């Protein structure tokens, strides 16, 4: 049996997960697994990791009671402020862990895939911090719509490699990073950015992200007592949600992951195998992977981490979808009511809450919502969609 948010047996979360990799990568996955297990059980490593998170990345992040939003919606909303970390999103938690592991493994290079560019920026940041060479694979479409993040990565000394195969987005960047990794195994660690990929990645990345949920759970208990009624997080690959849920899975809180309508792998997908894992996947009648379509580059992924498929299958978490329009309204709402400009990704969770407050989320409920990143990177996209309309208000 798989423990709930504990260590998965053989990399399996129920019937999901596993290690579906070409034979060339098998040994590399085993190596990452054995190093991770060794160091994650080593108090000195964990202490070093925690210390970097605190002294460099700005942890712990606050849990903010969003009072004006709460009074407007009729529910009590508490925001877990990952937007306040160094680099502006929760991605830093994972990359600090994996970069530290890279050093312990004796490797000098790190590669990563990125969609919105947040994981790429975080990886480039960690690479600079640890003196590692860094290459980031990014779909051509994303390179265009996230030009600011491309520049940030380059400024940090990373090489950004545009990927022109397939749909030219995140899923193709993953393929290309895997391809590059095969030929560079001796020197290079592949730093996957979400709770996806072959074992041990879904497990390892969730462990590096569980700090979100553990902090939020402690903060909620000490500030308000007990457990929240609901815990909300957006889900693309699902790393901030997995990290958040890890702190609440043993509580009475209802866990809800919010997917984009155009990339709802759990809501609309079927079990499939891609990128080294078995999980829910958007695919056609012959198993060809379909493109996700979302306003948010960070959620533009046709698959989802296997642990989410598992949590959905056993009913411990539920997954809901919101539209791009609802997300844009949520960006404006949170900006104006709380002075927090959210990234498009967590705006999905806000949009769901705004739509369902008083319905699926009953009046008076206490809700913890993970604000996984700040919205600076999306300013251009948001401006192009609703900028003119805002000017008229």
């Amino acid at each position, binding site marked *: 049996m798989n423990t709930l948010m504990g260590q998965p047996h053989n990399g399996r979360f129920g019937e999901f997960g*596993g*290690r*579906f*990799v*070409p*034979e*060339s990568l*098998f*040994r*590399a996955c085993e190596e990452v697994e054995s190093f991770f297990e060794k160091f994650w059980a080593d108090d000195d490593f964990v202490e070093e990791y925690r210390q970097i998170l605190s002294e460099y990345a700005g942890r712990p992040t606050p849990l903010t009671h969003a009072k004006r939003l709460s009074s407007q919606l009729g529910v009590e909303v508490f925001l877990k402020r990952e937007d306040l970390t160094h680099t502006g999103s929760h991605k830093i938690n994972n990359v600090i862990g994996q970069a530290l592991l890279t050093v312990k493994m004796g490797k000098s290079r790190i590669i990563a895939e990125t969609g919105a560019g947040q994981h790429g920026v975080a990886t480039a940041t960690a690479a600079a911090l640890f003196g590692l060479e860094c290459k980031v694979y990014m779909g051509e479409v994303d390179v265009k719509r996230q030009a600011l993040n491309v520049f940030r990565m380059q400024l940090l000394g990373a090489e950004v490699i545009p990927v022109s*195969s*397939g749909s030219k987005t995140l*899923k*193709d960047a993953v*393929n290309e990073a*895997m*391809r590059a990794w*095969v*030929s560079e*195994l001796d020197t290079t660690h592949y730093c996957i950015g979400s709770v996806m990929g072959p074992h041990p990645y879904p497990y390892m990345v969730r462990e590096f992200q569980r700090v979100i949920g553990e902090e939020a759970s402690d903060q909620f208990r000490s500030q308000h007592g007990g457990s929240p009624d609901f815990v909300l997080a957006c889900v693309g690959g699902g790393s901030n949600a997995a990290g958040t849920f890890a702190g609440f899975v043993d509580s009475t809180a209802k866990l809800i992951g919010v997917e984009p309508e155009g990339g709802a792998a759990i809501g609309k997908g*079927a*079990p*499939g*195998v*891609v*990128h*080294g894992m*078995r999980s829910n*996947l958007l*695919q056609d009648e*012959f*198993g*060809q*992977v379909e493109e996700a379509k979302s306003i948010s580059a960070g959620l533009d992924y046709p698959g989802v981490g296997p642990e989410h498929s598992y949590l959905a299958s056993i009913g411990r978490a539920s997954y809901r979808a919101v539209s791009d329009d609802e997300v844009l309204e949520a960006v404006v709402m949170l900006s104006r009511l709380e002075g927090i400009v959210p990234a498009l990704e967590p705006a999905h969770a806000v949009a769901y809450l705004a739509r369902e407050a008083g319905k699926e989320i009953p009046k008076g409920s206490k809700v913890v919502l993970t604000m996984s990143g700040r919205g600076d990177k999306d300013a251009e996209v948001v401006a192009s969609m609703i900028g003119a309309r805002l000017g008229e208000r």
Partner: protein
Amino acid sequence: MISLESSLELKRLQGSKLLVPYITGGLDDEWTDVLRAVVDAGADAVEIGVPFSDPMIDGPTVQEASQRSLDRGTTPLSVFSELRGIDLGVPTAVMTYYNVVHHAGPKRFAGWMVDAGVSGVILPDLCFEESDPWRSVADALRLETVQLVAPSTAEDRAKKLCDASKGFVYAVGVMGTTGERANVQESALEIAKRLKSLSEKTILVGIGVSNPEQASAVSEFADGVVVGSALVRRLLEGQGPKGAYGFVSELRSALDG
């Protein structure tokens, strides 16, 4: 259905080096003519790619061929249905990614193979530890699941994979994606030597075998070669059945020489 394993083994025991060209199924209107051409030119078996949207272990050439084929509307069913009417006289194996099998379901996919007279299957992303659901179905129908062994594969694992492999053992010549290389890599010779000492089975080296000289060099140690990207590139360039015949004939002469 001709057994891949016994057919290749028979030729090997007769002293012949083996040649298995790879072709992307449904690439264009002529792809089944290309199949016949490569057999006429001396192929001992043919590997046929069923295109997948996310070919993780393929380099640019096979990626482009897969995409071109998918854009023409190729599906697993269309590839199998075109194969059904053809008697090549040599065994065939399909190469695809596991999701194509997983989505159809092992039983259904195996049924398609049987109907089309395909003997073997190569699923490069189906790690051996994950392969029971497929192999239990395939074994019962005598479909041959080829295992890949890589330069990075540890010794005891390599032995296990060779023992489990049906049809032949696919020795991955290079740590990298499929694609042409300027020179024969040391790793290709190494793995051929290593696997020959580990196993009695037919050992074919693929990935990074791009021309007659390389085929001949690798076959010093291996039982033969799989040649994919170098042939597919010629097809993408529009060389058609004639070009394929010419190239495979050159490979054949080099192996026989």
